[in-house]
């Protein structure tokens, strides 16, 4: 039991980082991680027989994050965000500056520095787009479920995801690939 407790505690930093990326709020992140650790300790039996503690804990954490997101969405609906990225295209809809290739991106995924740059860009996304994007790409939700949780239409959801991707692309282009 003592051993299980310390192993669970050992995952705290990882879980905190995960929750912070998702919730963009240090306090809220600490709260959901605390709830997760308590739930894990109370439910040790549920872990029995599973091989990976982190995967199991992350599964619990995801549920806590979704609960927290649902709460926030209900309590503090966000204003609509500007930015259709019209400036990126001319009147006929062609790129003003066509995207160029990113050099050997796959090897970047092994670089801590690159992942840190990505995190910085994520932190700069507008709140609403970020929420939809993180649910989609970080938590791995299907679009239908995101719509349900955020109370928006699929079309709106696609627009939010598009905005998030466009903004991330621009940020990475400027802060990483152009250097």
């Amino acid at each position: 039991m003592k051993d299980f407790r310390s192993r669970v505690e050992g995952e705290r930093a990882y879980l905190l980082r995960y929750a912070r990326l998702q919730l963009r709020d240090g306090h809220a992140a600490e709260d959901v991680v605390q709830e997760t650790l308590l739930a894990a300790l109370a439910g040790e039996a549920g872990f029995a027989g599973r091989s990976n503690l982190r995967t199991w804990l992350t599964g619990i954490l995801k549920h806590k994050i979704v609960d927290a997101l649902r709460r926030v969405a209900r309590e503090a609906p966000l204003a609509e965000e500007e930015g259709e990225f019209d400036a990126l295209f001319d009147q006929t809809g062609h790129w003003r500056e066509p995207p160029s290739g990113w050099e050997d991106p796959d090897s970047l995924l092994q670089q801590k520095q690159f992942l840190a740059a990505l995190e910085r860009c994520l932190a700069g996304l507008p709140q609403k787009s970020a929420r939809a994007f993180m649910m989609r790409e970080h938590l791995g939700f299907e679009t239908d479920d995101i719509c349900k949780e955020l109370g928006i239409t699929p079309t709106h959801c696609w627009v939010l995801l598009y905005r998030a991707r466009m903004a991330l692309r621009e940020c990475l282009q400027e802060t990483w690939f152009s250097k």
Partner: protein
Amino acid sequence: MILSCKEASHLVSEGLDRRLGLAERVALRLHLAICDGCSHFRKQMLFLRKAMRRLAESD
């Protein structure tokens, strides 16, 4: 149906979130065949998805 780059970029993004219709897929493929900018854009979007997976797994 001739797509502009703006429309093509929307379809590339939506293609990551829903199954595109046949007409959309054909139009997009035709556009990508002749447009380097959008082809790069598509690769970048696929890379972003991979990078987010990697981020979720990393310590």
